[in-house]
């Protein structure tokens, strides 16, 4: 794996390898404490981030590496009009691995064409968020001990949420997974993504959440992506389309897990946090182990 831009480029075995390595690292982090000693990671965030940036930083620091970068493009030369390509060429000279988040789709491919060190996408516009999908499947694997034969409900903004395509691509690599895609009609999964998973992953599209959730192993909830909406009024109309609260989850099995890539706004009520199904904070924590595994595989 030279660069990590899309989950589409990973094989089932490569995904399983990352998941199993993340598990190994979590169980024995001290064994990896010096794995990145003497290495530098460039963290280039052209778009705001909390979890992705901090968990990559935590992951690299936990392996003894050092970090440079920026989290506000206004403080970088991109503000002066520097291209992505030039910024990446420069960062390649200054570091051993680059993590980049950018608000433009296609930015990952552009960057990967000039990066002379491994490049990891931390999210590219609405296109994909591959490392989120890897920590998501790590979370699922920890819970169920498998990544096949799962029934997953995805709920919310499936059109603009970049974690959705990456997670669907990851689930499509494993056998007998079924996904149910619940969103307002305006926020359905893009056709290009459905055509990518067609024949590889069984899916159904709907608007109304079923009254009975007992067949689900995972309920994956997403935020309506305000910053990507072309129209503020439409956002206001749709932002509370789904609110997952304890009464919605009444029929869910106790071993079902509720996931969310965070940040959460109103789509999961605070009182769900105390339910046995809530797994989103654990999921965020798993991001550190998953990203340590990704960096370990790509940098060494």
């Amino acid at each position: 794996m030279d660069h990590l831009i899309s989950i589409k480029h990973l094989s089932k075995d490569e995904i399983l390898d990352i998941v199993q390595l993340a598990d190994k690292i979590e169980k024995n982090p001290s064994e990896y404490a010096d794995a990145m000693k003497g290495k530098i990671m460039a963290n280039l965030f052209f778009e705001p981030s909390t979890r992705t940036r901090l968990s990559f930083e935590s992951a690299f620091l936990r392996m003894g590496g050092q970090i440079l970068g920026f989290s506000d493009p206004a403080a970088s030369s991109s503000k002066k009009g520097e291209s992505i390509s030039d910024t990446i060429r420069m960062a390649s000279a200054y570091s051993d691995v680059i993590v980049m988040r950018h608000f433009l789709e296609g930015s990952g491919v552009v960057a990967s064409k000039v990066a002379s060190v491994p490049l990891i996408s931390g999210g590219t516009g609405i296109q994909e968020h591959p490392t989120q999908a890897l920590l998501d499947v790590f979370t699922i694997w920890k819970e169920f001990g498998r990544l096949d034969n799962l029934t997953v409900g995805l709920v919310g903004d499936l059109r603009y949420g970049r974690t959705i395509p990456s997670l669907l691509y990851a689930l499509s690599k494993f056998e007998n997974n079924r996904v149910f895609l619940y969103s307002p009609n305006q926020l359905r999964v893009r056709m290009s993504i459905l055509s990518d998973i067609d024949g590889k992953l069984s899916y159904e599209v709907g608007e109304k959440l079923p009254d009975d959730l007992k067949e689900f192993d995972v309920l994956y909830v997403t935020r309506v992506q305000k910053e990507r909406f072309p129209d503020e009024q439409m956002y206001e109309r749709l932002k509370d389309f789904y609110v997952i609260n304890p009464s919605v989850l009444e029929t869910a099995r106790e071993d079902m897990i509720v996931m969310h890539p965070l940040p959460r706004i109103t789509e999961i009520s605070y009182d769900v946090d105390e339910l046995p199904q809530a797994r989103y904070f654990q999921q965020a924590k798993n991001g550190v182990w998953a990203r340590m595994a990704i960096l370990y595989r790509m940098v060494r």
Partner: protein
Amino acid sequence: MAKKDMIVNAIENGTVIDRIPASKSLMIVRLLGLEDDETCSVAIAVRVKSNKIGLKDVLKIQGRNLSPDEVAALGLIAPGVTLVTVRDYEVVSKTEVEIPNEVEGILRCINPTCATNFREPVVPSFQITTKKPLLLRCNFCDRVMLEENVLAQFI
């Protein structure tokens, strides 16, 4: 067509694009950038009678051959046209242009937030995912384009 009926003369060296669906010739002129290319002369015949396709357009381009990328793009907007290469007034090749599997350059991505639409040193490229109906996909941002999105770039 007998030589005495020809609307424009034969060319010495260059390219003839024949059997263009009627009124698509100006689109091809734009696709090939012929309006601004001072190195060649162009004759355009519009709505010429054709036994095979009813009415057709014909382009004769004196002094220019098409690059593979241009031929691929031509196959997107006017599949089925005949491409004739002429040297010393002789036809040296004659091929029917087909819809390509991939196209590089010439087209731009319709996604306004695709990185290729910004000042980056990359050439936009697209996979043709289906030919009927025509669907293309940006190799950078994954945005799907329809035939009308392609044609609109040359109107």
